[in-house]
C-alpha cells in the first residue's frame, strides 16, 4: 500500500511547499533496492542453476529423478544442521562442534538402543526412545554451549572449539577407539527412516523440507527470530531494547543442538554406526552452506532459503564431480574451491 503523506509538521499557512509530503514514495528506489537485494539473494540460486546446466551437459543422468533425489537426500544432514547454524551465525555466534556433536549423539544413541533392544521388545519402541534421546541430548548440548557463552561470557569460537574436542574424545572413549554399531535387527527396523519414500520423495528430504520451512517461519515470522536478528545486528542496542539477550542466545544454541539431533536421527539409519571419524568437518560444511547462501559471518541478517540453496549447491558440486572423470581425482577439492569462490563472487556485496 502506498505510504500516506505525513503532513503533521508541514502544513502551515506559511508554506504549502511543493511536494511538501515528508514521505516521497519513490517507487523506483524501492524497485532498484529490491532488484539489488534480489540479485544478492539470487546469487546462490543463479550459481545453482548454472551448475545444474553444466551437470546435465556433462552427464544426462544428472537430471534424472533418481539422481536428484539422491542428492537432496544426502544434503539433508548438512542442510538441517545448516538451518540451525544459520540462526547461530545470524545471532553473531558460531558453532564449531556440530560434527563432533553429531558423532557423539549418534554413538550414544546407538549404545542406548542396543542396551534397550532386548529389554523393550518391539524395535519400534526402542527406536522411538532412541530418537527422543538424540533430540534431547542435542538440545542439552546446545544448552551447555548457550550457558557457557551467554552466562560464562566466553567467546563462542572457544567454547565450541573446546567441545569439538570433548565430544569426539568421549565418542572415541565409548567406542574404545573403534566403531559403535547398531544391532542388525534394530538396524533393519530403523532403516526405512532413511531409505523409504513418501509420495516418491525420500523421508530425509521431507524432514529437511519441514525443518527449513519451520526455520524460515521462526526466523521471519516470530518474535524470537526477530530478536535473533536484532542481537546479531547490534547486541548492545538489543539489550537496551529490552531483548533478553542471554535467553535468546541460549535458545539459539539449543535450536542448533536440536537440529544436530534431527540430522543424527536421519544419519544413524543410513550407516548404522558411529566411529571417531563420523562427522569430521561437518562444521565447515554447515558454516559454508550458510555463508555461500549469502549470510554474513558477522551476523545480523541472513536467509534460510539462501542456506538451503547453499547446502544443495555444495552437494551438487561433489555430485557433478562424481558424475564425470574429466578431472584428476586429486583435484576434486580444487574444483570445489573454485566453484565456491565463483558463486560467492556472483552475490558479493557492493561497497
Amino acid at each position: 500500500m502506498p505510504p500516506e503523506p505525513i503532513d503533521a509538521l508541514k502544513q502551515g499557512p506559511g508554506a504549502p511547499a511543493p511536494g511538501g509530503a515528508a514521505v516521497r514514495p519513490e517507487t523506483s528506489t524501492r524497485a532498484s533496492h529490491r532488484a539489488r537485494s534480489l540479485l544478492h539473494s539470487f546469487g546462490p540460486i543463479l550459481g545453482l542453476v548454472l551448475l545444474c546446466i553444466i551437470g546435465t551437459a556433462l552427464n544426462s543422468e544428472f537430471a534424472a529423478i533418481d539422481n536428484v533425489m539422491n542428492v537432496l537426500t544426502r544434503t539433508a544432514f548438512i542442510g538441517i544442521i545448516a538451518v540451525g547454524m544459520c540462526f547461530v551465525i545470524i545471532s553473531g555466534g558460531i558453532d564449531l562442534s556440530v560434527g563432533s556433536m553429531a558423532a557423539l549423539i549418534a554413538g550414544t544413541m546407538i549404545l542406548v538402543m542396543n542396551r534397550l533392544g532386548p529389554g523393550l521388545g518391539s524395535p519400534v519402541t526402542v527406536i522411538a526412545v532412541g530418537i527422543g534421546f538424540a533430540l534431547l541430548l542435542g538440545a542439552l548440548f546446545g544448552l551447555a554451549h548457550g550457558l557457557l557463552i551467554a552466562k560464562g561470557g566466553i567467546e563462542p569460537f572457544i567454547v565450541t572449539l573446546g567441545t569439538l574436542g570433548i565430544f569426539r574424545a568421549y565418542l572415541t572413549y565409548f567406542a574404545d577407539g573403534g566403531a559403535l554399531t547398531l544391532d542388525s535387527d534394530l538396524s533393519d527396523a530403523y532403516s526405512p527412516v532413511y531409505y523409504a519414500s513418501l509420495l516418491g520423495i525420500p523421508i530425509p528430504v521431507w524432514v529437511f523440507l519441514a525443518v527449513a520451512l519451520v526455520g524460515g517461519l521462526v526466523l521471519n515470522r516470530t518474535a524470537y527470530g526477530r530478536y535473533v536478528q536484532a542481537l546479531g545486528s547490534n547486541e548492545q542496542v538489543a539489550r537496551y531494547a529490552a531483548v533478553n539477550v542471554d535467553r535468546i542466545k541460549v535458545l539459539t544454541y539449543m535450536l542448533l543442538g536440536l537440529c544436530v539431533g534431527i540430522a543424527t536421527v536421519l544419519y544413524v539409519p543410513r550407516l548404522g554406526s558411529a566411529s571417531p571419524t563420523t562427522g569430521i568437518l561437518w562444521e565447515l560444511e554447515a558454516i559454508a552452506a550458510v555463508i555461500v547462501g549469502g549470510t554474513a559471518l558477522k551476523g545480523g541478517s541472513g536467509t534460510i532459503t539462501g542456506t538451503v540453496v547453499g547446502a544443495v549447491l555444495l552437494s551438487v558440486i561433489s555430485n557433478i564431480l562424481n558424475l564425470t572423470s574429466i578431472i584428476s581425482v586429486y583435484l576434486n577439492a580444487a574444483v570445489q574451491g573454485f566453484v565456491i569462490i565463483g558463486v560467492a563472487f556472483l552475490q558479493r556485496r557492493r561497497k
Partner: protein
Amino acid sequence: MSVAIEFRDVVKAFGPVRVLHGVSFALPPGQVTGLLGENGAGKSTLMKILSGYEQATGGEVLVNGRAVRFKGSREAEREGIVLIHQEFNLAEDLTIAQNIFLGHEKKRGWLLDDAAMNAEAAQVLQQVGLRAGPETPVRQLIVAEKQLVEIAKALARKARLLIMDEPTATLTPGETERLFALIAQLKADGVTLLYISHKLDEVERITDEVVVMRDGRFVTRSETRAVTRHQMANLMVGRETADLYPPKTPVPAATPPLLRVQGLTVPGWAQGVSFEVRPGEILGFAGLVGAGRTELFEGLLGLRPRTVERVELEGRPVRWRNPRDAADQGLTYLSEDRKGKGLHVNFGLRENLTLMALSRYAKPWLKPEAEQRALEEAVKRFGIRTGSLDTPASALSGGNQQKLALARVLHPDPRVVVLDEPTRGVDVGAKRDIYFLIEALAREGRAVIVISSELMELIGLCHRVAVMRGGHLQATLEADQLTEGELIAHATGTH
C-alpha cells in the same frame, strides 16, 4: 588564510530520491554562519558534500572562487575544510589520541610518535575541556565525552573552514560555554565557521549570519542581528510557530506514587538515590555532564552493576534484572546514545519500531501488515520524514532517527517512561510536537521521567525537577521553584 565558499545549484540524490534540489548560496570568509532547517532538510548532506564525504549529483562547490570536486575527505582537508559529524565516527577500540590522529599519524621515521601525539591530544582535550587522558580507550567514554573528542579531533586538523553539525546536542551548558569560547577564538584567528544547531538560543548568540534551508532548497539568509529566535523558527518550518510548551496539567495531590525508588547505588556513578514519580507527573532530571543521571537509570534497569534498597511499582516491590523485566512491568527507557544503544541502524524502520512490543504482533506469527500499519501511524504521529518507508534506519536524518527511537520506546505503551535527552537533534517544530506528546502521555495517567541537558526544556515541561551532582541527588525542585538560576545553582553546588 580564510576560506570563502560558494554553492552553485548543488543537487544530491540517493538513488532516485532527491534530497538536495539545487542549493545555491555563498559564505563569506571569516565569519560564523548558522545553518538552519528542519530535520531532513538536507543540512548534513550539504555539509558532507562540502567536506568530501559525499559527492554531489549535480552543481558545483567553489572554494575561494575555484570549483572543486573532492573525492574524499582528505582532499577537502587539504583545502582546510573539516567537518564535525552529527553522528560519532570514532573507533571504539582505539584510544582518544589514536582516534584524534587516525589517518594523520605523526611519525618519527617508520615508527609512530605516540609521545608527540599524546601530548598534542592532551592539549586539544584541554582546549575542549575533556579531562580524560589521551590514552583512554574511547569505548570507556560517555556520550558527551565522545562529542568532545569529535570536536578535539577537528581542532587537531587545524581547519580553516570548520563545520560543526550539532556539536552541542549532547553537551550541557558547561561544555557548551567552553565551546563558544573556542569558537570565538577560532573566529579571531580567521577561521570560517559553519554552525548547525536546533538550539536557536545558541545560534542567536554565536552566529553572525543565518542561512535557512527547507526541503533540500535554500530559502533565505539574514544577519543574525536582524531576526529573532521566533522568526528563525518560522523561517525554518515555513509557517507561524506556536508556543513551544504545552500548559501544565496539575497532578492530583493525593495520588500514590507510580514508581518509587529507594537507595539506588550504581557503584562509581550514583550513591543512594531515592525518588518517586506519580501517575500524570513529568519528573525532570537535571545535572551537568558527569552527574550520573544516565548511569542511575541504566543501573535501575540492570544494565550496570547496582544495589538498590527498594523499587516499587504501584506500591508493589519489583526486581528488575534487565530491561526486559522492566518492560514487562511497564517501564521503558530511551537511551541518549542513539547510534550505540538506541537504534538498529541496519534494520528497517518497521523492525526498529516494533522491536520492543513484538509480543503484540506475534500471535504466534508476526503480522508484517500490522507492523507496517503501525509504522505508517508512527511516521504520522512523530513526523518522521523519510524518502521511503522501506529503507534502513541509517538513511534517516539525525533528527528523524531520534523521532524513530522515541517512537520505539513508546510503542510498548509503557506506564512509566524514562526519556534521556528526548529531543536530541530534533528541530523546533518537532520538539514542540514531542513536548505535547509527553504532556499527553502524562495526562493519560502515565509517569514520565525526562533527563535533559536543556534547562529550558525541563523548566517548560516538568512538574518537578530532581537535580543531581557528583552522583548524589542534590535537591528536588517543585514547579514554582523552577528557574534557570536555581537549577544551575544546585547542579554546580553553588547554592
